[in-house]
């Protein structure tokens, strides 16, 4: 084992590999920082380049794009209030208010360090426990997936903002939007009204960009017109305090480790991924916090939970891939393809047959996270320059990036019309003080829930299986408890806030 470890490390620490990895890291961060461009896109672009490299070298470069990408989304989330990637939705909740309060440097540093520790923790879990965790992940059937998604849906309660009723409505709208297009089992069109535009459904990323980016940008324009905001998005002098922030992150060890483990677990489940992990980690942090009312107003705990949670899915996703040859996400599937082109069969025998490669990938993960840290810390000042640019330049530029990104996703022009329409809906909902995160959660979770429910009933027509399979039963019980807990805390909070609140829904 040590031999293989050293052989792998030897290849990763070659000078040219390190240079390529550095470039990959920068590319991943930049791609993810631009709203509308995703990590997956960056990795697809790197794929043909790795054909010419050795297998470990190629995979190392792709891993550094991957790790960089899970951090880059933080930058636009903190500075613009727009998630750069689907996995940084929860980062906007607290990093953006913190930046607005005049601490953009602290928000970025917090996110970067949390991402770094999240990746490191996930890599450790990957090295220590990959085979047993992968075996558990593979045993989970459609019943467990459905129960998990039901549990995940209950976190809407943490995301509702000012009104539980409006939050739930937003969640239901999201679930509804997700049913448009071909049904996930048979490919039969639903709610498409024979329109070509709706034939392929509403792609999740188009919804995400439309809902968050377009509505946020329109909001900026509106503020500007009213003379409410200043010219630059974030005023004030910027302080980084890189090392002080590192200590601050380490002062929240429970949150950091819990969020990372949530990320590892969700990442290891094929098909779930970073877009759920950040929200789930945020929810867990908020529930166990002594001051849940501070979430959403710029608390460091929120930033740490979201960023550690999403970054840890990188290592988590590699667990089933390295242990069993089963990709945890689209990105892992591309990594596998890159290995297979070189004649390496990826499967349960990878660690035995190609030990140096497997251990080399562990080393590469560690190196990639260090590189991400160095690149981010050094370039933070540059990214913060964004805040010096007047709004009339930054808003149209970001808008153009969003449109290009939405198009590049599937190369369909009709997606752009959808983007516009969804953007308007998002703006309308936001103006009416509807929270947007539950809507996005509904769009993410709806299809997974439907697919697994139908799959479970096709496998066995008996409903009771959901309660007789132990893991499924535990998850469903957790969902019930979660709802009870949320209702209780809403009631408690309402009692506490009653004199001050302007609640008008009567819900």
């Amino acid at each position, binding site marked *: 084992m040590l031999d293989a470890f050293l052989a792998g490390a030897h290849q990763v620490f070659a000078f040219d590999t390190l240079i390529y990895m550095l470039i990959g890291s920068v590319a991943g961060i930049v791609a993810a920082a631009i709203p509308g461009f995703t990590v997956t896109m960056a990795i697809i672009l790197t794929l043909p380049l790795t054909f010419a490299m050795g297998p470990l070298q190629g995979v190392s470069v792709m891993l550094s794009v991957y790790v960089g990408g899970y951090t880059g989304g933080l930058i636009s989330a903190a500075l613009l209030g727009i998630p750069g990637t689907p996995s940084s939705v929860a980062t906007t909740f607290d990093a953006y208010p913190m930046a607005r309060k005049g601490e953009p440097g602290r928000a970025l540093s917090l996110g970067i360090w949390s991402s770094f520790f999240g990746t490191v923790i996930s890599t450790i879990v990957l090295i220590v426990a990959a085979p047993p965790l992968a075996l558990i992940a593979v045993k989970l059937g459609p019943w467990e997936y459905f129960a998990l998604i039901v549990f995940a849906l209950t976190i809407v309660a943490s995301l509702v903002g000012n009104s539980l009723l409006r939050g739930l409505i937003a969640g239901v709208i999201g679930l509804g939007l997700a049913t448009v297009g071909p049904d996930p089992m048979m490919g039969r069109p639903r709610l498409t009204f024979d329109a070509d535009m709706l034939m392929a459904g509403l792609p999740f990323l188009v919804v995400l960009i439309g809902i968050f980016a377009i509505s946020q940008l329109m909001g900026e324009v509106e503020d500007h017109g009213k003379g409410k905001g200043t010219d630059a998005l974030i005023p004030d002098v910027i302080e980084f305090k890189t090392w002080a922030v590192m200590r601050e992150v380490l002062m929240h060890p429970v949150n950091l480790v819990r969020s990372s483990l949530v990320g590892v677990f969700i990442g290891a489940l094929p098909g779930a991924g970073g877009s759920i992990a950040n929200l789930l980690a945020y929810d867990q942090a908020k529930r166990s916090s002594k001051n849940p009312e501070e979430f959403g107003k710029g608390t460091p705990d929120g930033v740490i939970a979201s960023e550690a949670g999403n970054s840890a899915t990188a290592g988590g996703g590699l667990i089933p891939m390295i242990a069993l040859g089963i990709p945890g996400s689209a990105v892992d599937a591309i990594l596998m393809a890159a290995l297979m082109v070189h004649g390496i069969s990826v499967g349960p025998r990878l660690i035995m047959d190609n030990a140096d490669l497997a251990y080399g990938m562990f080393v590469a993960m560690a190196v990639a996270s260090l590189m991400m840290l160095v690149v981010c810390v050094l370039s933070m000042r540059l990214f913060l320059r964004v805040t010096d640019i007047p709004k009339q330049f930054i808003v149209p530029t970001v808008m153009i990036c969003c449109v290009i990104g939405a198009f590049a996703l*599937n190369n369909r022009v009709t997606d752009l019309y959808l983007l516009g329409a969804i953007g308007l809906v998002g703006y309308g909902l936001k103006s009416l003080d509807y929270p947007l995160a539950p809507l996005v959660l509904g769009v993410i979770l709806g299809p997974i829930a439907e697919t697994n429910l139908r799959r479970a009933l096709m496998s066995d027509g008996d409903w009771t299986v959901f309660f007789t399979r132990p893991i499924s039963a535990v998850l469903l019980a957790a969902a019930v408890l979660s709802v009870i807990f949320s209702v209780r805390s809403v009631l408690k909070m309402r009692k506490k806030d009653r004199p001050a609140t302007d609640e008008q829904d009567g819900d």
Partner: protein
Amino acid sequence: MFRKIAVAAGLMAAAIAGPAQAQDYPEKPIEFIVPWGPGGGSDTLMRIVAQGLADETGQAVPVINMPGVGGNVGLAEFAKRPADGYTISQVHEGLLISNGTGITDLNWDSFMPIALVTSSPQYLTLSKNDNFSNFEEMVAYAKENPGAVRAGVTLAGVPHLHMAMIEDAFGIEFSYVGYEGTGQRIRALVGGNIDVAIGDVSSAGQFVENGDLVFAAVGMPERTAEAPDVPTFTELGHALDLAVTRGVVLPKGTPQDVADALEAHLETVMQNDDVRTKIQNVGSAPVFLGQDEYKAYLGKLSETVNRLVGKLEG
């Protein structure tokens, strides 16, 4: 001024030369629309072919992924592209099935088939279970307990067709569970959530080697080099051809000389050792059938699909 004259002269020359001279083809990059998402079988194989074609012709061949509705979104877009040889695409059995089940009006003859380039042999793969451990036992068990064997397939997709062919030939009945993609099916098979599925060497080979799964039969005329111990369906009593075959197509109406030129380029690409090795590495076989043979092949396949399509609509 000079620049303007030069441009005008160039335009005139182009006008005189007429559209798409075959000996010049290709004189600019060729867009390759792959109607599937990145990372899948079609994407990986077609990227290898695209790279080979770019090396052969000296023109870039960028791959554009246009996924959605089982490949039909990309093909619908492709059908609208100019028929000049500078946009090419790829089809496999899935298109014929989508047409048969009424999901799309497009069929293989809505395009100009140019060359069949890869063929991925498919294996009937069994999970480890108490009821059967080889093909004969599985058939016997399924005959005794109709519908008890759970088969993981992409509903109304190629694996569904392959399973229906097995049902039809051996007189048995599966109950179907919908999964998306080979990776998901193999995972469910390893986890014991389904009993049989169609798999291939690249996704299931190591599980078979490890003893977690069993290859019961291969849908090729002869045993494969990768799994020489696995019997063919012909040996087991019925000649079934279960393969996913991918070929390059042009929009209908492309000039014949351009089609011939592309066919010739692809023939050279498919003889390239590097391309062949890469295709084998990802678990497929490099092949080459030219325009006429490929059309004949698709025509015959279409008959099989239409015969069994009723089974796929349930």
